[in-house]
């Protein structure tokens, strides 16, 4: 009898997890669970304009950092300034009257900032520095940009608006820092990331 109970519960678990997980709007793998058991998947976030990352980053092949300019030089990767969008779209007649682009130009004409909702929102007591990570993985190690950004943010290039797909918790960050990999010909172990609390909790 107990075995039947176990079987039912196991089934319920697998079925349950499938049922309780929200379906993706666009494709992309669900990120890993953290060792400390935190849920990696963020909610679907409604944005003022349903910006299609897949059209820009995948189809047009635009580098993430063309718009998210702060990633290589500061703490925040920066939500692009509206004139970044306008810079191209003022010259693209073919899509000028599409509904989302018309909405964009409404904001631009009123010189009003688009009130995006923050998707990857760390608590105020954490200070994450994009620059160090981008400088290491993109500029020094020359990895492809979708791999570098995607490690933490998932396959955004296949999404419309962004959705958090990794836990972004401290345990999750540490799990990457604790990986050993080759630093140089003589050094096969890394320093396992910042050893001091204040490096992130400033």
């Amino acid at each position, binding site marked *: *009898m*107990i075995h039947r*109970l*176990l079987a039912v*519960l*196991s089934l*319920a*678990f697998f079925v*349950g*997890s499938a049922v*309780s*997980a929200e379906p993706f709007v666009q494709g992309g793998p669900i990120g890993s*669970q953290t060792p400390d*058991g*935190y*849920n990696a998947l*963020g*909610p679907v*976030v*409604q944005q003022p304009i349903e910006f299609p990352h897949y059209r820009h980053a995948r189809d047009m092949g635009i580098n993430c950092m063309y718009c998210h*300019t*702060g990633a290589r*030089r*500061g*703490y*925040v990767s*920066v*939500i*692009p*300034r*509206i*004139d970044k969008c306008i810079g191209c779209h003022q010259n693209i007649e073919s899509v000028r009257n599409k509904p989302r682009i018309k909405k964009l130009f409404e*904001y*631009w004409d009123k*010189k*009003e*900032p*688009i*009130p*995006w*909702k*923050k*998707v*990857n*929102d*760390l*608590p105020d007591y954490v200070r994450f520095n994009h620059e160090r990570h981008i400088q290491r993985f993109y500029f020094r190690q020359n990895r492809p940009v979708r791999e570098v950004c995607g490690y933490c943010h998932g396959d955004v290039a296949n999404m419309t608006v962004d*959705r*958090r797909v990794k*836990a*972004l*918790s401290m345990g999750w960050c540490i799990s990457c820092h604790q990986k050993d990999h080759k630093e140089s010909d003589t050094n096969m172990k890394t320093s396992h990331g910042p050893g001091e609390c204040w490096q992130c909790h400033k």
Partner: protein
Amino acid sequence: MSESGINRRDFLKVLGLGGSSLALTGCGNTDIRSGDELVMPNVHPEDFVVPGLSVFYASTCTQCGSACGVMGRVREGRVLKMEGNPESKISGGKICGLGQAAVQVQYNPDRLTQPMMKVGGSLQPVSWDKAMALLEEKTGPKSGINGEEFAFMTGAMSGHLKVLVENYLESLGSKNHYVYEALSPAVSFAAYKQVYGVDMPRLHFDKAKLIVSFGSDFLGTGASPVHFAAEYAKFRKAPRGTLIQIEPKMTMTGANADRWIPIIPGTEGVFALGVANQLLKHEEFAQSVPSDIVTLVAKYDPETVSSITGVRSELVGHVAALLWEKSPSLVISGASVEGHTHGVQNAVAIQLLNKILGNVGKTLDGQAQSPFPQIAPNAGSFAALKSVNDGMGSGKFKAVFIYGANPVFTAPSFMGLRDNLRKVPFKVAFVNAVDETAEECDLVLPIYTAVEDFGSHVAWYQPEGVEITMQQPLMEKLYSDTRSMGDIMLELVKQRRADEYKAWPDFLSYLKTAVVNIKSAVKYTDTDEHFWYDTLSHGVIHVDAPQQQIGSNFSSAMLNLPATADPQDPKFPFYLVPSERHYFRDGRHANCGWLQESPDPLTTIVWDSWAEIHPKTAESMGIKEGDYLEVSSQNGTLKVKAYLFPGIHPDAISIPLGQGHESLGRFAKGVGVNPFKILNPVFEVNTGELAMYGTRVSVKKTGESEIVVKDEGPVSTQMGRKLVVTLPADVAQLSKEI
């Protein structure tokens, strides 16, 4: 083990499975949010704006008169932090807490955001058009006002805004520029002028082996605390200099002294002459002063001096011995010396010691002579307040402008200034927050704070050469309906001098033209545009200028000190010491929460006023900490909590200045008491300045008591144990050590 169903092992297995599935789909990390907060992009910013990265702009701190060069850290168009500008010789790249609080002045929740006009007895918001129309109606060319009927009261000013104010007065044909500082340096300047021929000499702490300071709180208040703190650090480096402080109530500088000597207020000059008496016994000093002074000084033997000053006679010889032994030395004085009827004579007697010791030209010499007298600073005085008060009282003035001063708060009540101000038909205040004076005005105009405005400043104390510190906006104006004081003044000057000023649409262009004229004086060879931007980016212009020669002119006529201390009035037996706190000064920044929260360095009290009283005196009167006392002069009473403090003369009681506001904002209003109000009409005889330390008071217990909010905890932290053994000063034989 139960037959029918689940045994413990299986039960735990089920629980475990259920538990882990819950963890995998359920609780989540709620600190990591998604879709809660907004992230607003810029629309069309400047190219260099990177969200998250700070840029630094150089400017001038205007929180006190030191004109320290500072930098503001600006992120996303908001100034967030002030730091020192390393290029400034005055600040040396450092900044004090008062300067840091400039950020709070900017984000002051009680900022005035719109012009206000008095309608039916209360201030109502109006548009700038209406405000400027009223200004034009009352003081413009068609108003018929003549120069005699107009008065402009300002605080101490320097730089190009000062020039504009003076030009405006000139355009009106008015000579009535009243420069008022509640804590005025006028007595100090008069004394220095008398003996050295300059208002303020340059002091070289780093060259001195011994500093004897008669009440000069150079680390806290005074001419340039940031600069002097750095000089003091040099002074204390090996071989370590010695500091002796002689004052009625311990200041922050006094707390740093190696030897602190309490003295009856007003008798410091006598003590100095006593020390001179001992010094002149040395052959090498006997010829240093004219014979009339030698004769005069001979009367001040240690016993006489002791009976007048209350200081033990052996200390007179001890201080003299230290001065003779540790050379070069430097003897300076401060507000507690100057604030008496014979303040100038006190200060002169103290400078006599420098003369005798040969310090003049060594540790004390001249500052650089400014080649630009027009932008040189003016100095405030009480005499100016008295003049304008008399004028207002007699009905002489039809219009009064007030900028950079809050006389309704700082004027003693015997002056009746508020009533006199009410007699003036048209009063205008230029402020960034409504203070007591603005409350009385008919028109209150909201001006930019220092971090929003352009300007130029020249400090009174210049450590090297002449430094013109530039002020530039660290951010765009926070409130759309405020205006720059410079722009307002320019518009007013143009009312009568439109042609002369037509080349300049705003204060910025005026300032730029004027500053660019300095280019040749600093031998800058590039274009005007580059000079302007270089100047703004460096924040300071250093002008080499020849050093002022200081004379040395002492005569016995200047040393006419009273033979005895002020007689004890049995009705008002205590000496009131209205102390100046570094962060409060004359009280203008009392609405900064950071400053209220910063504990007083001596008492650690926050968000309040207090009356410092010597523990022995308190014991004899049955006063304990927190007892509400009534401190009364002939001109008013203050109700204030007692704080027992050994660093005060037993016959003195000290209440700090700067609190007791009735306006100015939520963090200032109703906090503490205002000792300015109860000062008696006692005046320094040479200058007519208010003798702020010359008021005598009575002290009475009210019977009420309340906890004193302070950081230090119980004063007697040893609680009867002998963790740190202390000895009373007269037992400890301090003279064997210092």
